[in-house]
């Protein structure tokens, strides 16, 4: 290719054939794509920042939301997402090692490192799926008031209490409507495990319980608590039991928190997914020797650029969703 260029190159800066940026067409286009994608992500994260600043005093605290590790009980804030970050960084390292091996035309090493990269990506994606399912499934549960605020329940030690752990026994005969039972052809989503009445009755029977509001005290950085004797007026405004998260409501606090979480980590996860697919395609191309015959492994470099970009975006998502 280089020889070809030299043959067609004419003298003079404006006669064509020059490569002022010293990059091939394909690599430049990948950079163009990455820049536009970076601006898309910054648009999303910017919108998140806007709403985060608007609701600065009521935004859910990430340490209280993401507290779980697979197969382990108890509260361990952030360790799992730190593990995910580490996996993605490590898959970036193996990717750049594959590029490095490609420069020396070591086919076997390119294959090995690309395989590790793909495995790393799959581990990350699986972890994210786990985190999503835990976020959606919910943890302790909460009550939503008529104006949309979320109220959580706290015991004397300051730990959040699961609704089922204090709710009163079921008294009514309410069962889930399905199209074949109850009103003919009318169905409804699954009922929460405890009803609002059970929660309120149970709360009144446990004087050690308090309410926790969404509002954060700017000095202590803790959410405001409502003592048991003052809780009645809040519970009089209760609308429904909320367990888990969806796009309309979540038990952790602001609905927007869940929306941005789903949208931004979902968009990033989709990038990881497509990155894995592209990596797999190039991986098989390496195995069948396409780039060995071509004489260079620039294609590996291009997909590596994309893969590193996905890692780069995660660095920011990690900071803005889990740290700040």
């Amino acid at each position: 290719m280089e020889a070809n260029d030299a043959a067609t190159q004419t003298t003079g800066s404006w006669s064509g054939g020059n490569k002022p940026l010293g990059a091939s067409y394909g690599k430049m286009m990948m950079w163009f794509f990455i820049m536009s994608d970076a601006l898309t992500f910054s648009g999303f994260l910017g919108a998140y920042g806007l709403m985060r600043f608007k609701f600065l005093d009521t935004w859910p605290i990430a340490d209280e939301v993401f507290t779980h590790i697979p197969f382990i009980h108890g509260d361990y804030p952030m360790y799992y997402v730190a593990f995910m970050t580490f996996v993605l960084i490590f898959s970036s390292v193996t990717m750049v090692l594959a590029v490095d091996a490609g420069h020396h035309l070591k086919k076997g090493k390119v294959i090995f490192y690309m395989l590790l990269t793909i495995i790393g990506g799959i581990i990350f994606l699986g972890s994210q799926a786990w985190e999503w399912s835990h976020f959606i499934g919910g943890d302790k549960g909460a009550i939503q008031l008529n104006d949309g605020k979320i109220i959580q329940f706290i015991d004397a030690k300051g730990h959040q209490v699961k609704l089922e752990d204090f709710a009163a026994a079921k008294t009514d005969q309410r069962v889930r409507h399905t199209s074949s039972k109850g009103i003919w052809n009318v169905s409804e989503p699954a009922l929460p495990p405890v009803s609002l009445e059970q929660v309120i009755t149970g709360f009144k029977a446990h004087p050690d319980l308090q309410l926790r509001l969404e509002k954060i005290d700017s000095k202590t950085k803790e959410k405001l608590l409502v003592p048991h004797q003052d809780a009645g007026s809040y519970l009089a405004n209760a609308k429904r039991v909320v367990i888990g998260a969806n796009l309309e409501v979540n038990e952790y606090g602001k609905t927007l928190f869940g929306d941005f979480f789903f949208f931004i980590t979902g968009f990033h996860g989709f990038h990881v997914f497509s990155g894995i697919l592209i990596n797999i395609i190039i991986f098989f191309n390496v195995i069948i020797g396409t780039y060995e015959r071509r004489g260079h492994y620039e294609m590996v470099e291009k997909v590596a650029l994309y893969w590193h970009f996905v890692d780069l975006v995660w660095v920011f998502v990690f900071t803005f969703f889990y740290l700040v």
Partner: protein
Amino acid sequence: MTAATSHKALIWKVFGILSVITAVEVFLGITKPAFLHTVYLAGTNLLNIIFLVLTLVKAYYIAWFFMHLADEKKGLRRAIVWTVFFLILYLATLLLLEGDYLRGIEINYTKWNY
């Protein structure tokens, strides 16, 4: 391309730096030292500013050494980095200022005592 071993050494060094920074971030995120968390600067607390700086340092190492921007010509590097950096800086500044303003409005209409 003779510097094969040195390139690999650089990659592992960058990996070490990124891992250490991530570990520091996670440590600060879990402990949230009060002397950082409750001191305010530029509209946010000191801890958040540290997170932001560490994130930018990580981004620098990924872009320069993993994405090989360090090996690109200066013109290409600046065309990429400056464009993205300043556009995002501009967008983020406007949106965050606006968000802060909206907070000042919204806070008057939200009641917490029932």
